[in-house]
């Protein structure tokens, strides 16, 4: 039954028949004929349009330049770039999407991000960044000084995401959209500041639906890293008490009361004292205890303050809402939860265990 010459005839006949239909191969993905872009930067353009920029040619050792375009729709921009540059620009390797803060504050970035999410060519691990300032200026400036700026930015983000380093909040599209669509959570994004010479991390932005409402920086951001992001921080500097804590791991327990009127947040930190410029002699045990107590109080104040601001702005990035889900009863809606969250009394308790790197005298 397995007669190969009959299959040959069959294949030829099918091919002849099929040639009447349209040709099978339409897209040309051959690697030397395309230029896969690594990032898109979206900014607010004139008259309600979007301004899209990208760097070409990506990844090859040729003269690079920044292409910008003002368009209504994202994919339209992608297409118009093809008409400018001689190689076809493909989005399959898109790794970062940089959104200007003006756009994020206006709201409506959900549609932008949705375009990227539903495209099966683009992976779901695209990093989302909010940029304060002008990214295009920065890139233009760096073109002559350092090559492959886009690639190194991607490597930096990947480095911090990989082993849960905890220094920055790194969010990819999937995480953002999951939080956006889930009723009891709110999304976050990292914020970077960019001007002609600098591009640095500022803090984390909290979103309500898809509109940016507040940005936290410095100590607040560090506390947020401990509370929610990776539960790990390499260095926590507290200048007020002249101390730097290092390699901190946090363990957070949240207990929500039955009627959703109060929340008790218990945070347990373990770390070590890496630097101390103060006057106390921490080699003595009681002074060390005193210092630890002061740190606890300070952190509790800061955290309560942060949570109050979250309540004011009606955002819940710490996913406290998920604690209201019970296995055997109906879940509460988003609006109900926001009401409860606004009026909730929050009690923060820190329990810090620190290990100094110098010898502590043990009292007999």
């Amino acid at each position: 039954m397995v007669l190969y010459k009959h299959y040959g005839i069959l294949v030829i006949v099918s091919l002849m028949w099929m040639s009447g239909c349209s040709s099978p191969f339409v897209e040309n993905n051959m690697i030397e004929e395309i230029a896969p872009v690594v990032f898109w930067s979206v900014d607010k353009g004139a008259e309600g349009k979007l301004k899209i920029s990208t760097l070409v040619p990506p990844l090859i050792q040729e003269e690079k330049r920044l292409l910008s375009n003002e368009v209504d729709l994202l994919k339209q921009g992608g297409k118009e770039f093809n008409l400018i540059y001689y190689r076809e620009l493909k989005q399959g390797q898109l790794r970062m999407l940089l959104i200007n803060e003006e756009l994020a504050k206006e709201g409506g970035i959900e549609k932008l991000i949705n375009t990227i999410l539903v495209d099966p060519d683009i992976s779901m691990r695209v990093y989302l960044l909010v940029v304060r300032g002008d990214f295009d200026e920065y890139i233009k400036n760096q073109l002559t000084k350092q090559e492959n700026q886009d690639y190194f930015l991607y490597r930096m983000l990947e480095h911090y995401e990989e082993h849960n380093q905890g220094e920055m909040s790194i969010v990819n599209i999937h995480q953002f959209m999951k939080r956006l669509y889930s009723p009891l959570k709110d999304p976050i994004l990292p914020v970077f500041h960019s001007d002609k010479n600098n591009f640095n991390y500022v803090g984390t932005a909290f979103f309500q639906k898809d509109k940016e409402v507040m940005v936290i920086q410095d100590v607040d951001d560090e506390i947020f890293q401990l509370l929610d992001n990776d539960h790990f921080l390499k260095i926590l500097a507290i200048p007020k008490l002249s101390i730097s804590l290092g390699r901190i791991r946090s363990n957070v327990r949240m207990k929500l009361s039955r009627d959703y009127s109060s929340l008790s947040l218990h945070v347990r930190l373990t770390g070590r004292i890496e630097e101390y410029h103060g006057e106390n002699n921490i080699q003595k045990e009681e002074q060390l205890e005193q210092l630890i107590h002061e740190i606890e109080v300070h952190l509790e104040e800061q955290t309560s303050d942060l949570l109050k601001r979250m309540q004011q702005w009606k955002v819940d990035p710490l996913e406290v809402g998920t604690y209201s889900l019970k296995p055997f009863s109906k879940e509460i809606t988003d609006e109900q939860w926001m009401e409860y969250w606004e009026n909730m009394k929050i009690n923060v308790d820190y329990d810090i265990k620190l290990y100094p790197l110098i010898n502590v005298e043990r009292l007999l």
Partner: protein
Amino acid sequence: MKSLYNRTSTFNGIYFLLLINRTQMHYYVLIMPVYLVHSYMIWGIVVMGLLSQLNVMLLSKWFTSSYAAKGYQGFLQLFGKRMVQVFAIFGLLIILLKISILSLGYVEMLHSFIYPSMDKKWLILVILLISLFVASHGMEKTLRFVVIAFLCGAWILIVFIPFFFPPIANYRDLYPLIPTEWSGQSWQGLLFIWSAYSGSVYLAFMVPWLSSNKKITKYLVIGNMLTIIEYLLLFIATILFYGSSFLSKINFPVVYMGSYIETNALDRIDYILISFHMFNYVFDISILLLCFYGAIRVIMSKMNERTTRIGLLSSWFVILISIILMNQWLWQSVPGQKMLLNIQIWLGAFIYLLVPTILFIAVKRKESI
């Protein structure tokens, strides 16, 4: 030229295990999470799985009866020639619909993810060609091919295990565990699961090639259990990954999840996963193609003549043309696609309910006479 339906040796019980499992793991498993959005449908899968176990036990009674081992002659003895021909005509249409939905579903997935601009006809042709090649080796060899299909297709599940560990997984997404509201959509979800388990009903016609060992019930039960575990694993992984409300917005959640996996050497593993999943489809389509040809022979009363190459080729050609026409007229538009899927779900559920019961009753009746 050897007949396509020769029997030279019998198989052990393990083939039942693999066959049941592989005939239940294809297109439905990929779109299942979209039909059963809520986390309490986990119980739905378990309950339907247990009902399917009962059905499988009914089937096993059929497998061990002497009528099954005689194949066509056994059916003639049970039902008479007219009835068998009527059943064959219905079966023909049902098989045709099932092959079409399977191929169209898989081609849809290939088309969305890997080749967005390729004409679907080529993909349909290629898949059907390779199924023809596998089927042309004969029924016995195609049934044995299940071992290869299992080994090359089952490892895909292992790739989804990292989704069970935090921080990607938030176990609170699984709450609430019991259904707090029940709607028509939930009933449809249960029907869908029942229809997904229905792949194993075609085994009832393949008993002459499989041994009628008395101990096969054990293997059938284990095979079904394996399917239940696989469904549960994939469904729970999708809920943990997406959360219920996001889940209802994605069309191929399992495949998108596959694209999230990142390794050091390669990104976008989902291309490899989709390609290897083809083994399941090719195996299923080959078996169904041989059943289709067998049904045509029954209808045209040619069971005593030899099988011919032209016969197999022409049944293959009929299937190809009908799939392409279905694609052209119905599958391209959303209402048409929905209608086809619904028909297939209802039909599948229906035959899974009816066929084991009819066979069981017929055997009991004959035995009591």
